Structures are given as C-alpha cells and as structure tokens.
C-alpha cells in the first residue's frame, strides 16, 4: 500500500474511533457560529437512511474531510451547504459519507446534537438556505420577465 493511500485509510479508520476522548478538530469558519475553528467535534457513523436535511455530515473529498450541513437528499447523494456560506452548494455521494456530527466541545463544554441550541442552529441554517433558494428563483423569474419585456418592446417598436 502506498504511503499516501495508507495515510488516507488510516485517517478514515481514525474517524471510526472518534469519541470525546479521541476528538476530531474543526478548522475554518464555514460552519460558524455552530462550529468554529478549533472546536472538537464528535462524529459517529450513520446509516444512509438515517441522514436527513439539517444533519451535519463529514465526507471524504480527495484527502480532506469536509463537514457540512445537509439541505437536500437525493437517492445517491446529498446536497450540502455551509451555515456561514449559504450561497454555495456542495455534493457528497453516498459512498463518501463517513459520519454525522453528534456534538461539539468548545472551552471544555460539550453541546450535543440533542440540545436545543443545536436544533436552533439547524432551523436557522435551513431557513436561510430556503430563503437563498427563493431569492434565486425570484431573481431568475425577474430576468426572464425582463427578457420578455425587452423582446416585447423591441417587437412593438415602430420602424
């Protein structure tokens, strides 16, 4: 086994054994405010059927492990977004999903996925994603209508 492959497999194995005593660390600002840089995160393996919109999942992408929120589920993949970047969309295929976030620790204090603050963050993030979607649909409609308007006015302009 090549070293790079062995390393990636070893990382995935480490995922399977993550726990509060063997934590994983979150890096970046994409999932703020729920997950911030340096937070410890507990990830648990999850069955595909148990994943739903609002869950935060970790998946393999090249040699990285992005951790993002599910906003829609297709038969073979998830559509994901980041709480702090609601305009962007990502996809993760079923086979690449490694687990679901079940808690985070900041300054020694654990917040569990069953806690109300976690649920509130979930609701806010999903609402924001829906608003972004609605905004995009409206913008698209406006462009179409404007286009029709332009064509109509061009057609009715006397030569």
């Amino acid at each position, binding site marked *: 086994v090549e070293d790079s492959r062995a390393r990636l497999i*070893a990382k995935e194995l480490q995922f399977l054994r993550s726990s509060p005593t063997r934590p994983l660390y979150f890096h970046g600002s*994409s999932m703020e405010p729920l997950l911030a840089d340096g937070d410890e995160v507990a990830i648990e393996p999850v069955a595909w059927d148990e994943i739903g919109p609002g869950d935060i999942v970790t998946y393999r992408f090249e040699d990285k492990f992005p951790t993002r929120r599910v906003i829609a589920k297709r038969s073979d993949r998830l559509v994901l977004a980041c709480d702090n970047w609601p305009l962007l969309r990502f996809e993760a295929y079923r086979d690449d999903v490694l687990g679901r976030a079940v808690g985070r620790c900041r300054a020694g204090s654990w917040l569990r996925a069953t806690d109300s603050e976690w649920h509130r963050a979930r609701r806010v993030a999903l609402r924001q994603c829906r608003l972004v979607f609605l905004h995009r649909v409206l913008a698209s409609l406006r462009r179409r209508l404007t286009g029709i308007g332009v064509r109509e006015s061009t057609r009715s302009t006397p030569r």
Partner: protein
Amino acid sequence: MSRFRLNGERAVWNDIDGEAVIINTDTSVYYSLNRSGTAVLRQIARGPCSVAGLAGYVSQAYGIAPETATAAVRALLGELQAEGLLDATTRDAEEPHRGDGEPASGPWEPPTLTRHGELERLVLSGE
C-alpha cells in the same frame, strides 16, 4: 500455550485489496501489511490464535515448509506485539477453525509490517 489476539481497544484495521492498513489509535501510528501478513491478520481477527495454529494455516495455504511458516509467523507476531497491536493471552480460549479452504491471496512472501508514520491530529475541513 500463548494465544494472540488483536488489541481491540487500539488496533483498527481495514483490508484494502488484500493488504491491511492498521492504525494504533493510542499512538496514531499507522502501518500496512503485505498480502501474506494480511492473511495472518485476518486469522487473528477471527479469534485468539497460537503460533502453531497460524503456522499450520500459513503452511497449508501457501504450501511452504512448517518450519518456514513458524519462523515467519513468530516474527510477525513479535512485531505486532511490540507495536501494541496484539495481546498475548494464556487463557485456554478455543482456537477458531483456521479455514482449510481459505485460499492464499498471491504467492508466498514473508509477512512484512511497514510502519508509515504518525497521523497528526485529525482535522475536519471547514474552509
């Protein structure tokens, strides 16, 4: 007679196309085994094994002399144990059936444990 079993608390492994990748979750050191080493590991993972039991399996599966198989198995077990991946037990646990029909995956080569390095702390990417 000592039997050897995987240290289930520390050793986590996966078989990738016949070659095992193992991580010691206490030290974050990760290793790989070649095919014959992986065949031995697979046997150990099924339950506590003695040197004689494993050597018998290797000898039969690869068609090599029992003395060669015993020496190879002993060396591999020593390495795995030194890395904290195996435990020796003297309890008289029943040795699992070694799988007479289980074919060898590839030609015989002495089992080799490669120590790749240590994983840094595992980071979830949120950039």
